[in-house]
């Protein structure tokens, strides 16, 4: 959920809107915000599945330390989405082990 008006910080989410895809689905976010936040605002919580036990993982530290939120971004796996700025046209995919999950059309 996006906070529009915050009691202390005032108006938020005023950045330029950009388009990106998540597993092939069209979504929008704010330019320059971390990919992880853009996904969260779109209701996406699962960033990847672990390779051995196929367990879902999402945002844990949000500051680039824990690597739980890594995904395949523009074809590159293991991208820490919490510190990767969102740009127009980004192709973000759920990571399955170290590969991208098949896109849902």
């Amino acid at each position, binding site marked *: *959920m*996006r*906070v*529009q*008006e*915050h*009691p*202390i*910080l005032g108006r*938020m*989410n005023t950045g330029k809107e950009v388009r990106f895809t998540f597993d092939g689905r069209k979504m929008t976010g*704010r330019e320059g*915000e*971390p990919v*992880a*936040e853009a996904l*969260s*605002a779109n209701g996406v*919580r*699962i*960033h990847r599945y672990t390779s051995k036990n196929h*367990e*879902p*993982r*999402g*945002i*844990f*530290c*949000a*500051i*680039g*330390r824990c690597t*739980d939120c890594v995904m395949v971004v523009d074809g590159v796996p293991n991208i820490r989405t*919490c*510190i990767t*700025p969102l740009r127009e046209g980004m192709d973000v995919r759920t990571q399955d082990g170290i590969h991208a999950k098949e896109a849902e059309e």
Partner: protein
Amino acid sequence: MSIPRYDLIVVGAGPAGLCGAIEAAKAGMRTVVFDENARPGGQLFKQIHKFFGSKEHMAKVRGFHIGEQLLEQAKEAGVEVELNATVLGLYPEHEVTVMKEDGIHHYRGANVLIAAGARENSLPFRGWTKPGVMGAGAAQTMIHLYGVTPGKRALVVGSGNVGLVVSYQLLQAGMEVAAIVDAAPRIGGYGVHASKVTRTGVPILVSHTVLEAKGEEGVEQAVIAEVDEHFQPIPGTEQTLDVDTICLAVGLSPMNQLMKMAGCQMDAGIPVLDENLMTSIPGIYSAGDAMGIEEASSAMIEGRMAGLAAANRIGFLDDASFAAAMAQQREALERLRKGMFAPENRGRTDLTETDEHIPLSQTLLKKGFVTERELEAFPGYTHKVGVHPVIECTQNIPCNPCQDACRFGCIAVGEEITQLPAVQEESKCVGCGMCVASCSGQAIFLVNEDAGEDKATVTLPYEFLPYPEAGARGAALDRSGKPVCEAEVISCKVCPAFDHTALLTISVPKAYAASARFFREGAEA
């Protein structure tokens, strides 16, 4: 190939690192700060509450504003700040390796200040890896830097200041907090932080822990249970809460790896420092959370101390100027490190009274609010005719902005900033509300016990949106968060001097003057 040299290399552009760099650069040193993040300021820009302390500690200023001021000062002093620059290593002769986008770079510093901050501790429990379980700091980052909430309803684990403050901030962002649990038998953070959460209706459950996060693809429920004196869950006490987020606020650990790597003498993860914050290796200093977990207020002072010491060590600051500047910082630090939350009192459970010999509120330690009966013993809790401040500040914490807030000298804290505020008998209250807005702990209310027509008015600090309008009706909540009576909004004042703390004045039946402490629009008593 020549290695770039600096008089001071600082690792970490948080409060400690920036302050150290500012002091060094002001003394004329060539100073650089490396930070792995894309933005400077460390965690300051996520801190939206008003800070504690006194004027010299930037009390009642919100953390992110302090961050802005420090960046401005660093720029003025000529500090170079390099972002997206991760310090990887610290080698003999103060050689520092830094990873940047284009590769690894080497630097050498006459002095090095390690102000790398801390990392959040984690807590393993069944299901703790599910999406939706996150650090409290992660939620803070998402909300305050990017305006995105991690979910709708959270369980917060840990009742230290981080857990309490983040719980309040989740509410401010429009989330619900189902509960705060802490395995310890007492609330760990400031009573005032606990009280401002409790009065909104969030229960704080001590001697409780989280057992499991349930949900198919992410958190949908949390199972909590009471624990015994050995921190073991008591069978049969389990409760299931519908939450989509579990925030862990179970402490911080110093980021001390560089000092370990360099061979600095360590003691249980904490670097051994001399009185100038220098490690066992000459010229290598540490300040802030990296050298022991404390508050941002103390980190800033420590950073300044290290910067001054480095300047003196290599001749940029003469001994006399150094001694004078250092003494000032040391005193400022000592003033912060007093009271019941002072480092030497950490973990103590035997404190039963305040420095003024008033019994500590046990309800506050167990449940997060002070009862009316307990409050009667405190010097800020007074009854008078007409509008007057009622100060529900009952623990010796380092804070005194309320004393300066009143132009008429109505409130006195005294020499030590950890003393309890007292309402002066003779003084006159004009009802301006500056004290209410200046209290970082939101513990001051203006009360008129007899406003006529069998009504009383209560003015309370309010930091939620939307602001209720005059005439709005709802319920007044007591300190425990329980609706106790009907209430009508008289006014909701917002002005720049209050810095986003609105002053909400409600009218309640006279009998509830001493218990009505929060307002929920549309709610029924």
